[in-house]
């Protein structure tokens, strides 16, 4: 009753006319996008112009111009049925401490954003990821609640029928022990199950008795009380590590192929408390060919070397697993990075890209990208892309089969350390890559208020030919930080490089904000 009342009370504008117009403009200008770069200049309202086809927006709303929170670890979901509808998350507290946490949403393709305080479990989430159902405004989320009764993590899986309604999300599952929930969803488009919504939530579930990499899947997630099946992905010994890594990522193809990847930890050395922990790990990919709708989900891919479920794409990789971010690492705590993306085109579910992080001599840490064209059985012998000193990898493949990699890279040394956020794209399967710098800012300011500084992940998706992504970065309004332009909703003066409070009278100290981008094909 309360939900219905509130739903009636508030309804976000849809802006369909605006979208059609915008799409026309994009089509017109896309060919010229590369050469028609306009000089960066200040516009009223906190915007720095960039090339056509690139939209980059600081999503903190104008009414929160006074906030100074560290809004790190962002995630994004775009409704494939209406790309005007976008939801984003970060470590953002409810400014008025109502007892629920917020997410950001846009109903105009990411141009403007509003905060919706509807996530149960405390004023702020521990971790949060979101996914649209695939066909409508229904939104799913996997969160870590702040109101865990003990020191264990407490995961909740949530759902709302309409992301724009300011009513509390429904709790579908709520239990102790899982960490870093990663939600992805899709709607079956053909066959007897057409119209059914499917939800996959990866997590590192410490209830897994050593084999902690887990996917909770619901084959009818829209049901009044969805049934979740808990699938332990790890089939090898985790040795002295006794667990897997926190990152469990999935990628779904419309033909029912679902990939998942995780760090299969094998041993550890050093001391976590002393911030010296090193982990030896495999990078493992598993696959299901029927949406997980079989008695033994995610057993479709076996490693030829040991005939065990899960292809080891990389073996014996070393990663640092930090307790705290170090200044030498730009304040960012390191602990690996993982992303997987399947080619969405028909008959292309066998083409899949994988990115993972590892420690490397000399450079400290790197991202590696490999590709498989035979459903994960074999992988490119060498990296199709390597990013030195890169982390927060996020892969996506668009409707043309072009692959994109979003990442954050530490450049420079000492006081000149910077965090750069890049989007690399390849339209030839990874043979060559373009490079777009979305942001570049000093890594020492603002000073972190907690870990993780930028987040343990960022995210990117592709819908149609467009890439939509989100990352967290310094919010200093300096046009040199955004070489391809940016728009701020919050009050900011790009001439003086100063943030302004909601009254526009007082300066506001810099902090970390989430930045949304949409990049045309």
């Amino acid at each position, binding site marked *: 009753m309360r939900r219905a009342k509130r739903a009636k009370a508030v309804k976000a504008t849809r802006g369909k006319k605006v979208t059609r117009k915008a799409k026309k403009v994009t089509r017109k200008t896309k060919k010229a996008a590369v050469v028609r770069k306009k000089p960066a200049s200040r516009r009223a309202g906190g915007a720095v112009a960039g090339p056509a086809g690139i939209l980059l927006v600081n999503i903190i709303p104008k009414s929160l111009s006074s906030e100074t929170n560290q809004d790190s670890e962002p995630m994004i979901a775009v409704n494939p049925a209406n790309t005007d509808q976008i939801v984003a998350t970060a470590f953002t507290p409810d400014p008025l401490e109502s007892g629920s946490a917020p997410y950001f949403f846009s109903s105009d393709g990411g141009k403007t954003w*509003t905060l919706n305080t509807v996530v149960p479990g405390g004023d702020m989430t521990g971790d949060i990821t979101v996914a649209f159902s695939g066909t409508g405004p229904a939104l799913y989320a996997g969160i870590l609640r702040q109101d865990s009764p003990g*020191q264990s*993590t407490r995961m909740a899986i949530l759902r709302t029928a309409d992301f724009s309604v300011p009513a509390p999300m429904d709790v579908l599952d709520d239990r102790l022990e899982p960490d870093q929930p990663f939600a992805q969803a899709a709607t079956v488009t053909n066959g007897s199950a057409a119209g059914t919504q499917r939800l996959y939530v990866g997590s590192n579930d410490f209830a897994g008795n050593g084999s902690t990499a887990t996917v909770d899947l619901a084959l009818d997630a829209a049901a009044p009380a969805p049934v979740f099946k808990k699938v332990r992905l790890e089939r090898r010994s985790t040795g002295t590590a006794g667990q897997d890594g926190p990152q469990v990522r999935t990628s779904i193809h419309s033909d029912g192929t679902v990939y998942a990847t995780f760090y299969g930890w094998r041993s550890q050395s050093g001391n976590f408390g002393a911030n010296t922990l090193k982990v030896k790990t495999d990078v493992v990919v598993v696959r299901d060919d029927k949406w997980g709708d079989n008695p033994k989900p995610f057993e479709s891919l076996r490693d030829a070397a040991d005939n065990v479920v899960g292809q080891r794409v990389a073996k014996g990789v070393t990663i640092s697993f930090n307790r705290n971010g170090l200044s030498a690492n730009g304040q960012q705590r390191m602990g690996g990075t993982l992303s997987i993306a399947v080619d969405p085109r028909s008959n292309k579910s066998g083409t899949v890209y994988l990115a993972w992080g590892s420690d490397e001599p000399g450079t400290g840490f790197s991202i590696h990208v490999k590709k498989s064209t035979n459903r994960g059985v074999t992988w490119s012998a060498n990296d199709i892309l390597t990013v030195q000193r890169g982390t927060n990898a996020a892969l996506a493949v668009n409707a043309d089969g072009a692959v994109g990699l979003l990442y954050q890279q530490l450049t420079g040394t000492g006081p000149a350390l910077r965090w750069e956020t890049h989007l690399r794209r390849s339209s030839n399967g990874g043979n060559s890559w373009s490079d777009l710098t979305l942001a570049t800012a000093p890594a020492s300011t603002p000073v972190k208020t907690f870990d993780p500084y930028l987040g343990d992940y960022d995210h990117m998706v592709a819908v149609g030919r467009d890439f939509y992504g989100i990352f967290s970065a310094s919010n200093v309004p300096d046009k040199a930080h955004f070489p391809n332009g940016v728009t701020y909703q919050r009050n900011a003066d790009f001439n003086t490089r100063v943030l302004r409070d909601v009254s526009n009278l007082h300066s506001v100290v810099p902090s970390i904000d989430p930045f949304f981008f949409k990049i045309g094909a």
Partner: protein
Amino acid sequence: MASITKESAAFVFRGTVKRKGAANLKAITDTGRTAVVTVEEIVRSPPAIAGFVGQDVTVRLADQEQVASGEKAVFYVTGFVFGERLAVQSVGHDSVTGARPMVAASTQAAGGDPTRAFRQTKARERAQAAPVVVTGKVVAVGLADSETTGATSAAITSRRVSEHEPFWREAVVEVEAVHKGTMPSQQCVLRFPGSSDVRWHRSPKFQAGQEGVFSLHPDRVTSSTRLGPAAHSLAASATTYTALSSADFQPADHPAEVAAAVSAAQSTATT
């Protein structure tokens, strides 16, 4: 989640109803129960929204709540929609005359700073909720037993590795006064997370020498079963506590917040 009342509302302001049945941000299209109100004075506010004096906000009225255009009132609100402008959810309003004693008392206690009034409200809430409230001083800080290498090295090496690990510490608090509950000895042990992870960063990180008011809860959070080295002089059976909210500790150099916590503790203490 506790229901929000006028007393606990995070945002309290005096304003004039500019337009009834109206809203000033695009996300709100149904204006049947909303009003645009000009903020004239903020009585209580978290820092992030303390700058709205002189601005119009949309107020969604509570069930049965009525206002008239031109009406001046003190509104008690919580968050609703944060967009290009601010919309808030009312939990009630009072006439300016009726609210005058509350506004005067709050303004005086907070020195006219609405963000300090907000902190006092939080201190009051935490002291009301805590079974034990004391004034004291941190005399020692150390690792919790679960973190010490000598006593539990096997546990340390076999435990989970999570970015959300709390890394428990212990503070020994010398108790100077008990405002609520019972404290059987002059010292007590307070466990707190040393972690800087997002899950724990808002919990107070205690250091030796800190003085103030502590709102204490018996420790039902940590897995420590024995006292750590900083608390070695205490009886092994000493009750251990936690203080995990940022408002669970009010430092002595914030006298108004200290007074709010002590007053709330005493008013809710059972005799």
